[in-house]
């Protein structure tokens, strides 16, 4: 797990990385595959946001439950 302590964040005002040294290997490239396990509180929003920001990444959601209560 990357240690965030003392790391100088080189980000644009909108939060995108200006100097991606710290995120090397993290940013997904076109055609790569993101698999999401679970689709309730975190999984669904992660899938939707991933597809919105990275339309050329292949996003797959695998959910076990048919239903969750939404709180």
């Amino acid at each position, binding site marked *: *797990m*990357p*240690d*965030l302590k003392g790391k100088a*964040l080189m*980000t644009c005002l*909108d*939060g*995108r*990385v200006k100097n*991606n040294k*710290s*995120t090397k*290997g*993290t*940013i*997904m490239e076109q055609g*790569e*595959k*993101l*698999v*999401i*396990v*679970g*689709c*309730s*509180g*975190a*999984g*669904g*929003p*992660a*899938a*939707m*946001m*991933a*597809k*919105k*920001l*990275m*339309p050329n*990444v*292949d*996003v*797959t*959601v*695998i*959910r*076990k*439950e*048919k*239903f*969750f*209560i*939404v*709180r």
Partner: protein
Amino acid sequence: MAGLATPKSIVVPDEKLEGAGINVFVAEVTKVDAESKKVLISDGKEFDYDKLFLATGSSSFIPLIEGKDLDGVMTLHGLPDAEKIKGFVADNTPKKLVFIGAGFISMEIASLFAVQNPGAFDITVVEFFDRPLPLMIDKDMADPVKEYLQEKGIKILTGKKVEKIIGENGHVTGIGFASGEKLDADMAFINVGVRPNLELAENIGLEMGTFGIKVNAFQETSDSNILAGGDCVEKLNFITKKPDPGRLRGPAVMQGRLAAKRLAGYEIEFPGVLNAGGCRMFDLVITATGFTEEAATKEGFETVCASVESRSKHGMIPGMTPWKIKLVFDKKTQKLIGGQIVSHTVSPAREIDSITALIMGKKTISDLTTFMSACNPDISSEPSLEPITIAAEQALQKLKKV
């Protein structure tokens, strides 16, 4: 449970995901091979991944007490649980309902039974602590809530430790307390919290924290290709930066989006949780954020607190209802660290989001004395009686007296 929403409407619909170009599979993931970056599902199908996001959630925690498996012992975490409760009530027509634990889910379900079927049930809520909603509000805020609910016909027994659930022929017949007392019951509802679903993450060998999968502020786990978020991960408290057991949907949604942003090249950190939440019982709305006075003291803070009675509208406007706010400050730094609201209408209770924003902005007592709210005779108290500023003024005077 209230019947206000259809089952389909309370989940992220698969059509919405598929319409956005997302592949959806309803299946159980049986194994993740982190070395070869493959996910295996129950029918044997394999999925390759470059990045994996784990959002395996949590499950209701049922304590290991005698009688927990009896027919008529219910819990509520997912829709199948709600359908099971409704089915049991329809088939067995229970009269005596006992709710174990006075957390917000128990309290909401208890009040729903009372609202939807007036007089049909004998409802009792049993709580180990000295008040209902002990994790949300302090005793001085909870006492009027308890009184209100008792006026509505819900019995609330506090300071009671449930030792066992009593049954006959496989069915619930009562609750046994550690004191030796017993309470008759036809149905027992247990909601004393949830536990993270960690089996998959443990099998992968991800680093664990006290309350779930250990992640950094970008939702990254100990495996550089696996991120995680929601109920299955350990979150840090925004104020103390210490691991926090809270598991609520709001932070889960934010963590899911943050993980996606991280993968898209953003570097936005999760700020930590304040466990902001709310519940409604009859026409009473209760919201809270940050630490209660009691929790803050347990965390080692010396606190300065202030409570203010307010109005939903200007005093001369018909339909005005009372509401009450309590603010908790850290005496040393004078920073706001918690807030609680009890209201008879919904809109004042939403002021809790202002309190959350003020905590996250690290505002102090002095800052809050100049807080300016949007006022209108029909939607707020008079500007001179705005309760956040009044509470801050009270806290300021308390500091002066010391």
